[in-house]
C-alpha cells in the first residue's frame, strides 16, 4: 500500500482552513464588533491589536485556495464556480476591510468615519458570505461531467442564510474574547459584557446546525446516530457544552486569557463536527477526495514543499505574535 496522498492533502487543506477560521476569525470579528464601539480611541486600539498580524491571518485563506487548486483541481473548479457570487462578494468585503486597515489612519478627519464603516461592513459581508458558502457546501452541489451543473443562485437557501448569520456570531465571539485578552479599562469591560450574550447566541447556532444537518441529510444522520459512531463522536457535543460553561465562568471571574482559548475551542469543535459529517467528500454529496485528486506527480511535488515549509511558517508566525504580545494601548502602532 502506498501513501494516501489525497488523504494527506485533505488534512493539510483542512488544517489550513481551520487556521484561517480561527485566525482571520478574530480580526474579522473586530470589524463585526465595530458598530458596538463608538469611541474613536477605542476603535484605534481595536484595529491596532490586529494590525501587525491580520495580513498573515488572511494568507491562510490564500493557502486554502492554492492548496485546493494544487491537490484537488476538480473540486477547486466546481466549488469556485458553484459559489461564484458569495465568493465574489466575500472578496469585495475583504478588499474593503483590507484597505481600511491602512486608509483609516491616512484619511482626513472628514473621511475617517467612511473607512470605519467600510471596515465594519467589509468584515460583516465577508463573514456572512463565507457562512453562505459553508451552508451551500453542506447542502451539496450538482455535478455533471466533471463540471458544476447548477444555477448561479443555488447557493442561496434558508440553511445557508442561517450558517451565514451563524458565522458572523462565531467570529464576533472570537473578536470579542481576543479584545478581552489584548485590551484593558472600559473597552475591556464592555467586551466582557458583550461576550456573554454572544456565547449564548453561538450555542444556539451550533445547536441549530447540529439539528438541521442530520434532518436534511440522511447520510449525515446515519454517520452520527449509528453505533458505535455515536460513542466516538459524543465527546464533540459534550465538549461544546463544557467549553460554553467554562466561558461563562471565566467571564464572570474576569479572566483575560481563558475566554479567547475557550472561543477557539468552540470554533474548533464546531469545525470538527462538520468534518465528521462530511468526510471524505470534497464536493458533497457525491465526489470524494480520491475522486477529485490531482495527478500523483502534482500531489507529491507540492507535498514536499508543504511538509517542509509549514513548520517554518508556524514558527515565524508564532514569533511574530510573541513580538506583539501584551496589552495594546491608545497611541500604539506606527501610524
Amino acid at each position, binding site marked *: 500500500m502506498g501513501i494516501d496522498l489525497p488523504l494527506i492533502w485533505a488534512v493539510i487543506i483542512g488544517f489550513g482552513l481551520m487556521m484561517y477560521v480561527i485566525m482571520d476569525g478574530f480580526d474579522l470579528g473586530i470589524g463585526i464588533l465595530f458598530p458596538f464601539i463608538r469611541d474613536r480611541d477605542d476603535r484605534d486600539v481595536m484595529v491596532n491589536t490586529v*494590525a*501587525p*498580524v491580520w*495580513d*498573515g491571518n*488572511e*494568507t491562510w*485563506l*490564500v*493557502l486554502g*485556495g*492554492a*492548496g*485546493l*487548486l*494544487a*491537490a484537488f*483541481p*476538480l473540486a*477547486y*473548479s*466546481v466549488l*469556485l*464556480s458553484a459559489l*461564484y*457570487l458569495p465568493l*465574489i462578494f466575500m472578496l*469585495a468585503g*475583504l*478588499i*474593503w476591510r*483590507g*484597505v481600511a486597515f*491602512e486608509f483609516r*489612519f*491616512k484619511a*482626513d478627519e472628514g473621511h475617517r468615519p467612511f473607512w470605519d464603516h467600510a471596515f465594519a461592513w467589509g468584515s460583516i459581508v465577508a463573514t456572512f458570505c463565507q457562512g453562505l458558502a459553508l451552508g451551500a457546501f453542506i447542502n451539496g452541489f450538482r455535478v455533471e461531467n466533471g*463540471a*458544476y451543473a447548477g444555477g*448561479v443562485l443555488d447557493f442561496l437557501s434558508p440553511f445557508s442564510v442561517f450558517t451565514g448569520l451563524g458565522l458572523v456570531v462565531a467570529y464576533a465571539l472570537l473578536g470579542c474574547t481576543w479584545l478581552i485578552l489584548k485590551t484593558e479599562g472600559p473597552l475591556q469591560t464592555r467586551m466582557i459584557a458583550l461576550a456573554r450574550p454572544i456565547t449564548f447566541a453561538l450555542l444556539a447556532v451550533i445547536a441549530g446546525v447540529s439539528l438541521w444537518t442530520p434532518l436534511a441529510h440522511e447520510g449525515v444522520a446515519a454517520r452520527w446516530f449509528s453505533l458505535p459512531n455515536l460513542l466516538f463522536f459524543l465527546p464533540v457535543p459534550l465538549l461544546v457544552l463544557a467549553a460554553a460553561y467554562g466561558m461563562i465562568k471565566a467571564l464572570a471571574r474576569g479572566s483575560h486569557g481563558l475566554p479567547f482559548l475557550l472561543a477557539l475551542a468552540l470554533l474548533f469543535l464546531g469545525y470538527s463536527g462538520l468534518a465528521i459529517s462530511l468526510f471524505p467528500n470534497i464536493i458533497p454529496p457525491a465526489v470524494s477526495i480520491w475522486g477529485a485528486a490531482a*495527478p500523483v*506527480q*502534482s500531489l507529491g*511535488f*507540492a507535498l514536499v*514543499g*508543504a511538509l517542509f*515549509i*509549514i513548520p517554518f*511558517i508556524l514558527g*515565524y*508566525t508564532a514569533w*511574530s505574535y510573541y*513580538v*506583539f504580545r501584551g496589552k495594546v494601548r491608545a*497611541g*500604539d*502602532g*506606527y*501610524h
Partner: protein
Amino acid sequence: MFGLTALELARIQFGFTVSFHIIFPAITIGLASYLAVLEAMWLLRKDETYRELYFFWSKVFAVNFAMGVVSGLVMAYQFGTNWSYFSSFAGGVTGPLLAYEVLTAFFLEAGFLGVMLFGWNKVGPGLHFFATVMVAVGTLISATWILASNSWMQTPQGFEIINGRVVPVDWLKVIFNPSFPYRLVHMTLAAYLATALFVAASGAWHLMKGHRTPAIRTMFSMALWMLLFTAPLQILAGDQHGLNTLEHQPAKIAAMEGHWERTPGEAVPLILFGWPDLAAETTRWAVEVPHLGSLILTHSWDGQIPALKDFPPEDRPNSTVIFWTFRIMVGLGMLMLALGALGLLQRLRGKLHDSVLLQRFALVMGPSGLIAILAGWITTEMGRQPYVVYGVMRTADAVSNHSALALSTTLVLFIIMYFFVFGIGVTYMLKLVGKGPGHGGPAEPERADPAADTGRNQRPSRPLSAAPGAVLSIGHGE
C-alpha cells in the same frame, strides 16, 4: 452587457483585475528592496538621513502592500470562479506552483511585515533589519513562482495530457520552461525601474518645491543611479526576451511587428508606426526602416521572421492592439534611458539637484514605469491568444459556464469598487509622498503631526516641520 459574450466579459474582467493588481506588486517588489538597502545604509553609516527615508517610504509601502494583498486575493480565486475549465485542466501544474508561492513567499512577507512596520520599538535593529530583508526576499520569491506559472502557460513543457488533463512529468522542465528566465529578469527589472522612476519623480517634485533636505537629495540621487544602471540592462533583457519569443511564439512577434507577408530572400523592415488592419491583412500607413526588423530580431542583415499570414486567421493574436502596446513600452524604455543619461550628465556637471530640466523630466516620467509594465503585459498576454496555454488549450475552452448577466454584474462591481478603493489608495499614497520625509518615526501617532491634515491652507508650518534645521532659505515653495 453591450452585446458581449460571456467569454469576452470573462476576459475583460480578468484583464481589468490583473491590470490593476500588477501595479501594486511591482511597486511592492521595488520598494521592499529599496527599504532593505536604506536600512542597511543606516546600520552601516549611522546616518539618520537613511532612517528618515526608511520611515517615509515604509508608510507608502504599507498602503501599497495592502492594495496588493487584497487585489491579489481576487486573482487567486478568479482562476476558479471564472476559468474553471482551465483550473481543472491545468491545475495539476499551475496549482502546485501557486501553492509554492503561498508557502514560500506570501507567508514570509505577511509574517515579517508586521515586525517591519510596527516592530521598530519591539525588536532590536539587527532583527528588524532581518524582517525587512525577509519581506524583500519574499516579494522576489513571489515573483519567481508566479512568473514560472505564467511562463509555463506561454511556453509549456514537461507535461503530458492524460484523460483530458495536464499531468506534470518533469517539474524542472515545467518550472524552467524556455521563457521563464527571460520573463523573470524582465519583470523584476521592470519593478525596480518603475519604483526608481516613482522615487525620482517624488524627489523631483520636492526639489521643485524648494524642499532641499538631505533626505530628499539622497533619494533623488539614489533613484537616478538606479535608473542609470537598470534602464540599459532592461533594454538588453528585453531584446533577449524578444529573441526567445521569436523562437517559441512566432505569431506573437509577427503581430507585435505588424508583419503580414514573408517574401523569401528579402530583409524584414522595422515598422515604426502604422495601423495593423486585421480585416485587410495589412498594416496601413506603415512608416518603415528597411532591414532593421531583421537586424533586431535575427541579429543579421536580412534574416527572416515568420509573418502573420503564415498562421490561419483563427490562430493570430490581435495585431492592432499589441503592435501599439509594444511600441508604448519600448518608447517609454528609451525615455527612461534618456533620463538616466541626463541624470549622469547633470551629476558630472555638479548640477544634479539644481537642474530644472532634469527635475521636470523626472517628474513627468514618474508613472512611466507602471505604464510600460501594463503595456508590456498586454503585449505578452494578448500575444498569447487565442490560447490560454499556448498551443495546448484555447481560451474559449477555459472559461466557466456563467451567464453573461452574472459576469456583467460582477464586472460592474469590480470596476466601481476598484476605481473607488484603489483610486483613493493612490490618492493617499501621493498625499504621503507629498508630505515628504522627516515627519516623525514609526511610533508617533499621525494625529500629533500638525502637517498631516492641513492641506494647502496652512503652508507656513510645513517646510519647517518637514526638515528641522535643514531648510534652505529658498522661498517656501508652493
